């Protein structure tokens, strides 16, 4: 289980750990609700920052998951594909999606820290974007 406070985030609500593990935020799993399908990327795939590389689907809609950093996919969570509800239950733990070996580590510093992400969520809520 990752500590949400230590993770980095991007505006499309993915989190990224220092070791390159990627998942969706608690806010995102609440918005998506009832995840019923997870399609992780293939291990070995090279992705660019911002590239859609996985899909999380709920009963009502499909959501693209964007790579927070560029690099190579070195692991994908088969458990989440098998039991998608763990993305709702443990978004920062067993519900992780994939792991990237970052090719440009400085991209990591461009991501929001947890305080900045909280602020971003608050401003989104204030603008009624949901």
């Amino acid at each position, binding site marked *: 289980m990752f500590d949400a406070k230590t993770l980095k985030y991007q505006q499309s609500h993915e989190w990224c750990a220092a070791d390159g593990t990627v998942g969706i935020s608690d806010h995102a799993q609440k918005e998506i*609700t*009832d995840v*019923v*399908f997870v399609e992780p990327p293939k291990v070995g795939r090279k992705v660019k920052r911002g590239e859609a590389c996985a*899909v999380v*689907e*709920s*009963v*009502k*809609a*499909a959501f693209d998951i964007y790579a927070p950093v560029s690099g190579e996919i070195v692991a994908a969570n088969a458990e989440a*594909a098998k039991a998608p509800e763990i993305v709702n239950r443990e978004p920062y733990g067993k519900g992780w999606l994939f792991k990237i070996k970052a090719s440009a580590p400085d991209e990591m510093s461009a991501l929001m820290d947890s305080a900045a992400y909280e602020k971003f969520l608050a401003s989104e809520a204030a603008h009624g974007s949901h």
Partner: protein
Amino acid sequence: MTTSTLPRRTALFESHQRLGGRIVDFHGWELPVQYESIIKEHDAVRDRCGLFDVSHMGQIFATGPGALEFLQKVNANDIARINPGRSAYSHLPNERGGVVDDVIVSCLAKGRYLVVVNAATSDKDFAWFLKQAKGFDVALDNKSDDYGMISVQGPKAAPLIELMAPAAARLPRMGALELELYGTPCVVTRTGYTGEDGVEFIVPNHIVVRLWEDLIAQGQSFGVAPCGLGARDVLRLEAGYLLYGQDIDESHTTYEAGCGWLVKLDKGEFIGRSALAAQKKDGVKRRLAGVKLLERGVPRHGAPVLLDGRQAGVLCSATYSPSLQAGIGVGYLDRPDPVPGTKCAVSLRGREVPAEVVEVPFYRSPHLKKGA
């Protein structure tokens, strides 16, 4: 009737907010798409009991010596067969056999009928009724703004209703009853849109909140759950019910929608009869078919369906089915003949997912007795 384009709220709007409902704009109505979880609400209805605010739906009363004759003209179903105290599902055909709306007609008494219509079509339906009613001795009254509607659905609906309105709990399937709740005249029908047993309370706005709160309080011991539009859509698709505007409309006929059973060509003249009779004779060129995914994936509205590698249609309604634990959908296929078991594929985000044509309803409740 409101002319405002602002979203409309049902009498239960504040109740939904208090219960944590996630409010969305549904055809101009602010209604909860879900409270906590679509799947949990779905499961509550399949296993126990769910409450739905369906106050957005419309109510048109047809009264008078010519009411039956008028309703025969505008309905494809045979309204003469609906005895007092009974309801029937019907389509309102246009001249081409297309569907103006799908409705539940209840006979409250001889010469007194209630037509429950869809929210988005209630104004259109009423205008259509007024146009067609010329020369009939019938009074038409659109009470859509005055009535709210609460649907109580699930295997525990009957024992819950027993506590609230014993007479309603004794109604047979598709029964209809006028009764008093809190001293106010109301209508209850043994109908629903979920494939489970249940009733729908059609009550004046001023008692809707009271009824909702009493149902929630009395329903605690039955595990009752307030349910949103999300669960309602999944439940109705599993049960094979059509959604007007998505699965049927003015350009698709009742036969094409697979509801030929309700077209009673032998009842006499009615709007669209000749078009429907011709289609019955010649056969349909497309038909609404059910499709179930054989691999993981969630089909969506608009997804192409491929038969023998060729696009045969697109899905008009589709979802993940918690009851089947598979993706399901319905769509008009230009080959009207594929039998259940026919292999096909659904194109999802550029991926061709293996699927097969299946019988609709996708799900039959084990709680409902056969033929009920």
